[in-house]
C-alpha cells in the first residue's frame, strides 16, 4: 500500500506531492477547493460573536466566499474563528475543539480579547489565544466589524492560495507547537448491557 504511494511521492497524502507540471496543477486545484469552501466552526464566546453573525447575514453575506454555514461540529469545519475572550476555564475546551477539527485547519483570532487579552489583563482571561492554538490571522478591533473579519478571512484565503500553509506543521514550525503526550492508562472496562460478569 505504501509502496506505490512513496513511489509517486504521496507517502503523506497530498501534502508531500512531488513538484512537476502535472501535480502543480493538482496543487492549484486543491488550494482553490480549500479556499472556496472554507467552513468555519462556531466558536463565539462574547460580543465578537455578534459581529461574526452580522458577517454571515445578508449585508455582508459570507456565502459569497462559499462559507455560509457555521458548522456546529468541529469534524466538519476547517476554519476556527475564536470570537471573544477566552477564559482560563475555556482554554482546554478550545484546544479540544481545535484538536477535533480535521486537517487542514486554520484559526482566526477575532478581536483583541482573543488575540492578546485586550483590556482584560487579569487572572481570568488567557492573554492571547495563540498560547493554546496556532493562530494564522489576527483580526484587531473591539469588536472587529464585519469588514475587519472579512479582511481576516480574505487574508486566510490568500495564505491558502500562496501555499504558505499547506506544509505548515512540518516546515514552518509556526503556531503554539503544543503537543500533549497522554500516557496510556488502564484499558477501559467495557460495560455490558444486561449486567452480568
Amino acid at each position: 500500500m505504501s509502496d506505490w504511494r512513496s513511489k509517486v511521492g504521496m507517502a503523506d497524502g497530498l501534502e508531500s506531492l512531488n513538484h512537476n507540471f502535472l501535480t502543480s496543477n493538482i496543487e492549484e486545484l486543491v488550494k482553490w477547493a480549500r479556499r472556496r469552501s472554507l467552513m468555519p466552526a462556531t466558536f463565539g464566546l462574547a460580543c465578537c460573536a455578534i459581529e461574526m453573525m452580522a458577517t454571515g447575514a445578508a449585508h455582508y453575506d459570507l456565502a459569497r466566499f462559499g462559507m455560509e454555514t457555521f458548522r456546529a461540529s468541529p469534524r466538519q469545519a476547517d476554519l476556527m474563528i475564536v470570537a471573544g475572550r477566552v477564559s482560563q476555564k475555556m482554554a482546554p475546551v478550545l484546544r479540544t475543539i481545535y484538536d477535533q477539527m480535521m486537517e487542514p485547519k486554520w484559526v482566526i483570532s477575532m478581536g483583541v480579547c482573543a488575540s492578546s487579552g485586550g483590556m482584560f489583563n487579569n487572572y481570568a482571561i488567557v492573554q492571547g489565544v495563540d498560547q493554546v492554538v496556532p493562530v494564522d490571522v489576527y483580526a484587531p478591533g473591539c469588536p472587529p466589524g464585519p469588514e475587519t473579519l472579512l479582511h481576516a478571512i480574505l487574508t486566510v484565503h490568500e495564505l491558502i492560495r500562496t501555499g504558505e500553509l499547506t506544509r505548515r506543521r512540518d516546515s514552518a514550525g509556526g503556531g503554539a507547537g503544543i503537543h500533549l503526550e497522554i500516557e496510556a492508562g488502564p484499558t477501559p472496562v467495557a460495560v455490558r448491557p444486561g449486567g452480568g460478569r
Partner: protein
Amino acid sequence: MGYLNGFKVTFARLFEDRVTTEFPAEKRPKPVRFHGRHVLNRHEDGMEKCIGCELCAGVCPAKCIHVRGADNPLDDPVSPGERYGFVYEINYLRCIHCDMCVEACPTEAITESKILEFSFTNRDDAIYTKQELVVDDEGRPRHQPWELWMEGEDEHLSGWMRATAPSGAAAFEGRVGWSGDLGHGVRPPEEGQTAADEFEGAEETEAAT
C-alpha cells in the same frame, strides 16, 4: 394551494434590491465619529504635534500605547515644544478604539482615522511604530500593505471631538467642533438635535414606543 402562501415573502424579495455590500470591492460609509486606527498628526510646517507627555499612555485602559519622550534637539527640533515623543508604539492587538487617548491629548497630536480593515498574520505587524503612525508630508496616513484603503478614505483624519462635546445642545448647532486637517481643511459641522428630530424614522420609532 395553501402552501404557496409560505413563499409569498420569498418571491416578493426576489424583486427587491440586494442589500449585500460587495466588501473587498466597496465599503459602506462610516459614521462621522467612527474610531479606526490612529494617526499621529503634524503641523502645517511639518513639525510633529506630539510632545511626548505620555498622557495617552496613562489614560489607555488597555495599556496598549507605549510612549517615551525626549528633549528636542536644539539644531533640528522635531516638535515645537520642549520635548517630543521619540518612541511611539501602539499595539493593535490590545487597542479597543475607545478614543480616550484622543481626548487626553493636549495638542491634538493623536487622532483616529476611519479604517479598521486590516488584519495581521503575526504579532509583530500589530505593533505600529512611529514610522507607520505619523502622517506623511501632505497630511495623509501612510498605507500599510496589510490595510485595505479605498479611494478618498484618508480624508478627515485629524478631525476629532470630545465625547462630551455639547453638539447635541441646540446652541451648538452649526458650529464646527472638529479641528482642522492638514491638507484637507475643516470638516462640516455635525448635525445637531434638530436634524436628528427630522430623521425619517423618528415617527415610526415614536409610534413603536
